[in-house]
């Protein structure tokens, strides 16, 4: 009996050790760091004196923090809404087999394969106000004669960043949702057709409810990767113009790696962790409710 319990624990041990070493330790370290005066000196002397709530106060007093938080929310919500809607539409579209559908679907995966920084650099050229392809195109079809200041106006730049991120995120959403659609039994659609359900009604009453577990996974994964966005913004706008595309990710980067104030950087990092944790808990509860309901 005892050896059995021991065996059980030994099976758990690798996972536990891994979690503690690579998740637990950095997490605790980051929280502790946010209460310390952690500067370049710390790396040489190993001393990081505790300074209470100083870091937190300074971050919350920084006007940029509020802006960055709000812009992070806008960026995340906008990106997820766009990625998900377009990804789902494409997944539904491709779930009907037609000639070349596999080929076109494969092509649509390309944005996913291109490294984020490369995409951002290319989009920076496309969205150039004077010579970008996008403005030339809009000018040619007569939609805009002046040229849209995609990246050079603070009122447009965040929208541009969201559009680029939507473009990057569509393939991921499409692939996972397409997989989910394949799992839905054909008979249900046949039954719906026999009952005379319209395509919209079929989508609402058959597709969506059965796709729900996949939808939550896609949204949660999308949320996690979008909320901490850094590389895309750095390469596309560098947080500008006039801080209009600063997010919590770029703010942490600025505080920790440009100003070398690791304590303040850790504060912003902790805020990000907290937001992610709230969503992770929500996801678990939704999942548990689904399980209990027998879905």
């Amino acid at each position: 009996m005892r050896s059995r319990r021991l065996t059980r624990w030994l099976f758990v041990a690798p996972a536990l050790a891994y979690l503690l070493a690579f998740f637990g330790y950095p997490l605790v370290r980051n929280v502790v760091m946010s209460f310390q005066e952690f500067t370049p000196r710390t790396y040489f002397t190993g001393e990081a004196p505790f300074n209470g709530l100083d870091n937190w106060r300074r971050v919350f007093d920084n006007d940029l923090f509020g802006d960055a938080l709000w812009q992070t929310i806008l960026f995340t919500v906008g990106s997820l809404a766009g990625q998900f809607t377009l990804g789902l539409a494409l997944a539904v579209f491709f779930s009907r087999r037609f000639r070349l559908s596999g080929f076109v679907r494969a092509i649509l995966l390309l944005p996913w394969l291109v490294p984020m920084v490369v995409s951002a650099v290319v989009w920076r050229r496309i969205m150039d106000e004077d010579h970008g392809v996008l403005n030339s195109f809009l000018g040619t079809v007569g939609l805009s004669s002046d040229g849209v200041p995609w990246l050079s106006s603070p009122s447009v730049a965040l929208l541009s960043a969201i559009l680029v991120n939507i473009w990057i995120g569509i393939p991921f959403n499409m692939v996972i949702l397409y997989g989910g659609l394949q799992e839905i039994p054909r008979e249900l659609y046949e039954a719906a057709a026999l009952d005379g359900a319209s395509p919209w009604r079929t989508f609402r009453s058959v597709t969506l409810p059965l796709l729900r577990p996949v939808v939550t996974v896609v949204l949660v994964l999308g949320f996690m990767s979008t909320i901490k966005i850094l590389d895309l913004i750095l390469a596309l706008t560098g947080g500008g113009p006039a801080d209009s595309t600063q997010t919590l990710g770029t703010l942490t980067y600025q505080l920790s790696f440009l100003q070398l104030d690791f304590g303040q950087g850790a504060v912003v990092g902790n805020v990000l962790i907290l937001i992610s944790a709230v969503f992770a808990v929500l996801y678990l509860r939704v999942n548990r409710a689904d399980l209990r309901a027998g879905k």
Partner: protein
Amino acid sequence: MRSRSGRRAAPAVALALAGAVTAAGLSGCAAEPDPGTVTVLNSATDTAEHEANQDFFDRCAEPLGLRVEQVSVPADQVASKALRMASSDSLTDILELDGSELPQFAETDGLRPIDEVGVDTSGLSDSANALGSHDGVQYGVARSVNSLALVYNTALLAEAGLEPPATWEELETTAAALTQGDTYGMAFSASPNADGVYQFLPFFWSAGGDEARLDDGAGAPALQLWKDLVDDGSASRSVVNWNQQDVNDQFISGRAAMMINGPWQVPVLSAQDDVDWAVASIPVPEAGGDPVPPIGGTVMAVPRNDGDREREENAGRVLTCLNSEENQLAWGERVNNVPTRASAAAAYREQNPELAPFADLVLTARSRTGEVGTRWPVVETALAGAFQSVLTGRQSPDDALGTAQRQATAGE
């Protein structure tokens, strides 16, 4: 039988796995380098640059019976890499940092004052020594330095019958006159990072701006000048996105008749035949005034190594050799930067007349960290915020500098 042996094997597998995970976490400690080797951390990731550096290191190390090994990481990662190395006691014997990063390291007491390892810097220019100093102590030595100047398209200016502008007023009229069709009169970098700030400083400082008191009113005309250039259409509104590389691209493609840029662009400019170019001094607010551009470049410092002073001495010997007149001149020509030894700088000026404005500009150039020291990164961020919000029409120059000053001194 099978199931039993399987069960017995299970704890062993689990144990082995747990052990492997722990072992993975503990490995990765650096070995002590060989005593005859001097290690260097720098940003020479480009193959040609790496080899050029090695060439000069070998030239100096071989007669001393030493070997030099470079560890190169991208420029913006040198500081964080050095910090990580410091925390594991594996810092290199020579640390090549950007001049603006030196105070952060000097402040930690982790660097040895450069004269204590036998490097004599008395023959180097004052501006170069300022670049390597913190709180009056010299920690770093700069082999060569750079600054910013006005680069112009000789054909376009000749066509319009114009001379390169010497004052701000001339800059505005010349840029307006040169703006035609697809070509802007002027290009500069106003990106919200070190590039944009580096380019803003010659205007800010020449106007009398003070980085310790951003809101004293003296720097506002510099912001107004940039704003006017963009509002008049003489410069693209995209300058807020352009780094210095983008500015050079615009110039080479003929979309800008003049630009602000540094000597590191010379190889790219020389390698193309589309645009004929020449270099002029930075325009100043009033005729006859001295331009005050920032001084840039890297400095080499020697981290403290109390356990093995011999290594520090070796590093010092290599540095002394690298900074001989002959080596400085050869290095300056190799990287198109101005040597810091007065005699070498004079020879450089003579041999490269087309780059003479750079050689003159570094004489009046100022170090970014001379006045604010370790606070520079915060001031830099605040200044970037100021010109970005002025150029995008969010704030007036005076308001923007007021905001910047508050940001730069927050928490003090």
